[in-house]
């Protein structure tokens, strides 16, 4: 589909260039709405995979793996340094209390 849109956009651009060349110098040219639409569609086509990525299959699979493969252990491992630092802070807070 993306390839089709890209090819259509290339054809549309080349047709527009030819029509511009045929237009007398100084005359105001205006691209047809369909040309502009195809160009816009082509640019959307190339951007679509990036835009859809948060919902793409790889993202879904990765988030599924995160939750299924030792999530609690990994979470506790990631949290452990922060919790230890918090314990040190608590000690400092209480140490100099009157």
């Amino acid at each position, binding site marked *: 589909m993306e390839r089709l849109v890209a090819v259509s956009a290339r054809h549309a651009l080349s047709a527009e260039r030819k029509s511009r060349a045929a237009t007398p110098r100084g005359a105001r040219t205006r691209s047809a709405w369909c040309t502009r639409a195809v160009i816009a569609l082509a640019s959307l086509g190339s951007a679509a995979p990036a835009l859809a990525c948060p919902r793409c299959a790889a993202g879904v699979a990765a988030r599924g793996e*995160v939750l299924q493969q030792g999530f609690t252990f*990994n979470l506790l491992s*990631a949290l452990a340094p*922060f919790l230890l630092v*918090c314990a040190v*802070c608590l000690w400092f*807070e209480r140490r*100099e209390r009157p």
Partner: protein
Amino acid sequence: MMSTSTSRRGPLISAGILLGTGLGGFIDGILLHQILQWHNMLSGVRPPTDLVAMKYNMVWDGLFHAFTWIMVVLGLWRLWAAGNRPEVPWSARTFWGSLALGFGLFNFVEGLIDHQLLGLHHVHPGENQLAWDLGFLASGVVLMLVGWAFIRKGTRDVRPRGGLRLEHHPLYR
């Protein structure tokens, strides 16, 4: 003026440690995980060799950044609380020392648990990964020592925030 013995620096040190941990964690996450891409949170367990594995690590990097963000918020909360207490000396040396202590403490603890004990990731995986890991631990120790030295020097600072206790200020009498 308050005497050093009665000064209560604990809340300021605690705030500095929390902020130092959070900001240090952001340096790790932004510089080593994202810009240099040396490692990810679980790259030792699930090496990012394909798109799913990269995204898997991306989720864990996100959680790591969420924890560092929470530490910064907690640090701001404690700093605000410390600022509201007239008995807490507003010492720049204590605060900056605590920031360094927090940064170093986090590097040391994180290096010990995640790199050495659990092998969740290594600083720079490859031939010299142990040297990199030890260097990371050493950076933590150096930062802690520097921080502690600053905190020790800060014992001489006894001025509260703004340099004047509110109850002594003419507007609040």
